[in-house]
């Protein structure tokens, strides 16, 4: 790839499209060429599931026509991007990586997709993901595993692995994913890109297919912090169609680039740096902390003792909510139906052949922890401990700590198939990310270096709705480390 618009930041590309220096059609065409060049489809990375190039090129041509007619285009004018396959779009399928929704086209669009399009972005494709966002490797997709563009023998992470891979492969500067327990930040770490999980309520979930409603968020991937900040700013804000969307003003996230970290207190929770942490991961984190200190931050060791409970709590609460949310896939109103003579047999045949192994496992687990006799011991207990975890996080921030810094993942990307045999081993991939979802706070993963040629991410966590503060540190860290993605 040489002198392609794919090399421009999203903001720079939009500026050039608005000025007429670059056409939106050329930008989309370049992204399509890059899809082919890196073999992002089924025959290669398997990052891209569904695309409609003629429609994308037509949308781009319409943007060019509007600009020629004197219209002022938006902040993402002509920027091609991709959305995870569980975010409803018009014109492209929304299958959640599942057979049960194979061929399904949503009759309405997610608010996030609408806001992106209204800002001038062109939705080029839907990306591969673990089925219904349940997984940490994108190996649990009904359409086959996605691969990591940094090393195709390894996973891109998950569940939003296709979106992370599309950004890492230089196809798009921005992609959307979704987070329930780390499904944006973990693949961002594995693929060497930036991933943001916003505060719960910051971005509308309208049109995000529900997995665990009290934990789900739409998140953004960017090649750089600025790409991600621009995308987040575009989709953030109250939406009357989502009752959990917060009526809290949206800060200017890109302005955080000049905020700096001088005087900021960044907590280093000791539970995220256990003795068992891989030395290379610890080393890259220490380098990042030194870099933050060098540009004016104070690093303070803190303690979050409830961290050890985060994975058990998450893997009770999330499957419980999933078992309820996925009850809607019954072959009646939409999606796949396997005909049978009786209603009960139709339900069972449809669901049993439509859901994959991991989704089935989680539905069973969720149904079990909610069933009579076990509800108090598992679900109620987990929700109470979740309250403890959230209170502990609030307490640390209330003690004068502005942000927290941790590794995003305990290791770089692992090999395909390395963790599929033991479900709990796979679940531990989320050990550093689930707390943010349980507490509802924002977090960002960004590249902080490489280990044996593979990227590794560092994570910043912030108080509720303090995305601008979090991004200020992320911009500073990116600049201080000079880590290119």
């Amino acid at each position, binding site marked *: 790839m040489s002198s392609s618009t794919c090399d421009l930041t999203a903001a720079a590309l939009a500026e050039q499209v608005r000025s007429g220096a670059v056409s939106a059609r050329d930008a989309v065409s370049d992204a399509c060429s890059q899809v082919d060049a890196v073999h992002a489809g089924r025959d290669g990375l398997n990052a891209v599931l569904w695309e409609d190039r003629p429609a994308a090129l037509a949308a781009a041509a319409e943007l060019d026509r509007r600009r020629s007619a004197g219209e002022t285009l938006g902040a993402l004018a002509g920027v091609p991007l991709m959305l995870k396959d569980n975010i409803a779009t*018009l014109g492209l399928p929304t299958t959640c990586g599942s057979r049960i929704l194979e061929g399904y*086209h949503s*009759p*309405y*669009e997610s608010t996030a997709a609408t806001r992106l399009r209204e800002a001038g972005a062109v939705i080029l494709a839907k990306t591969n993901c673990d089925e219904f966002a349940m997984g940490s490797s994108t190996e649990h997709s009904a359409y086959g595993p996605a691969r990591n563009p940094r090393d195709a023998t390894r996973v891109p992470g998950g569940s939003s692995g296709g979106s992370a891979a599309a950004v890492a492969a230089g196809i798009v500067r921005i992609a959307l994913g979704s987070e329930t327990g780390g499904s944006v930040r973990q693949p961002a770490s594995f693929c060497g890109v930036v991933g943001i999980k916003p505060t*719960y*309520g910051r971005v509308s979930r309208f049109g995000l297919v529900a997995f665990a409603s*009290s934990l789900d968020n739409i998140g953004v991937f960017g090649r750089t912090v600025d790409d991600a900040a621009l995308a987040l700013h575009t989709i953030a804000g109250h939406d009357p169609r989502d*009752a*959990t969307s917060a*009526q*809290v003003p949206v800060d200017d996230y890109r302005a955080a680039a000049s905020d700096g970290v001088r005087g900021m207190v960044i907590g280093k929770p000791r539970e995220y740096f256990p003795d068992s942490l891989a030395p290379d991961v610890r080393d890259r984190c220490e380098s990042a902390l030194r870099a933050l200190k060098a540009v004016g931050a104070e690093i303070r060791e803190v303690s979050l*003792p*409830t961290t*050890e*409970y985060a*994975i*058990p709590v998450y*893997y*009770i609460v999330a499957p419980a909510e999933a078992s309820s949310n996925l*009850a809607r896939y019954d072959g009646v*109103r*939409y999606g*796949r*139906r396997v*005909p049978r*003579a*009786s*209603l009960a*047999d139709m339900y*069972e045949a449809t669901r*049993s052949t439509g859901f994959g192994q991991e989704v*089935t*496992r989680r*539905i*069973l*687990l969720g*149904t*079990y922890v909610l*069933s009579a*006799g076990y509800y108090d*011991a*598992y679900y109620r*207990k987990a*929700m*109470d*401990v*979740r*309250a*403890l975890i*959230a*209170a*502990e996080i609030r*307490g640390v921030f209330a003690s004068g700590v502005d942000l927290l810094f941790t590794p995003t993942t305990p290791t770089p990307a692992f090999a395909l198939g390395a963790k599929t045999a*033991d*479900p*709990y081993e796979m*679940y531990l991939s989320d050990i550093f990310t689930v707390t943010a979802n349980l507490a*509802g706070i924002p977090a960002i993963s960004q590249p902080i270096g490489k280990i044996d040629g593979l990227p590794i991410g560092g994570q910043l966590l912030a108080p509720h*709705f303090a995305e601008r503060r979090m991004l200020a540190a992320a911009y500073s860290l990116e600049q201080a480390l000079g880590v290119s993605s």
Partner: protein
Amino acid sequence: MHVGQKHAGKVGTALMADRVSEKDVRHVASLARLRIEPAKIEQLVRELNGILEHMDVLARVDTSGIQPFVPEKLDAMPLRRDEGPSVPLARPVSDIGPEMRDGFFLVPRLATHEDDGSHSS
């Protein structure tokens, strides 16, 4: 706020005592409207027990007096009227439903209904 090990006073027993059996898997699968191949039951019992074993740690945590979890800034998420469909559909529901007639979703007859439905319109 006391957290973590400081809460290790009350030890629940239900988690340790009750683990998943083959009967449980069949029961839960029935509740979830999932048919599990008999050959896979044993594997699921093993996997679910393997997962639930890690949940036992929660029994050590004293959560007495804990206020229920609620999202932060709940006041910024005010309840609204439960109003009717507000989303215009770009495609008719008949394009989406697996089987429809006259605007209704069709389902197989319930086992308790004995006639063949030939009189229904």
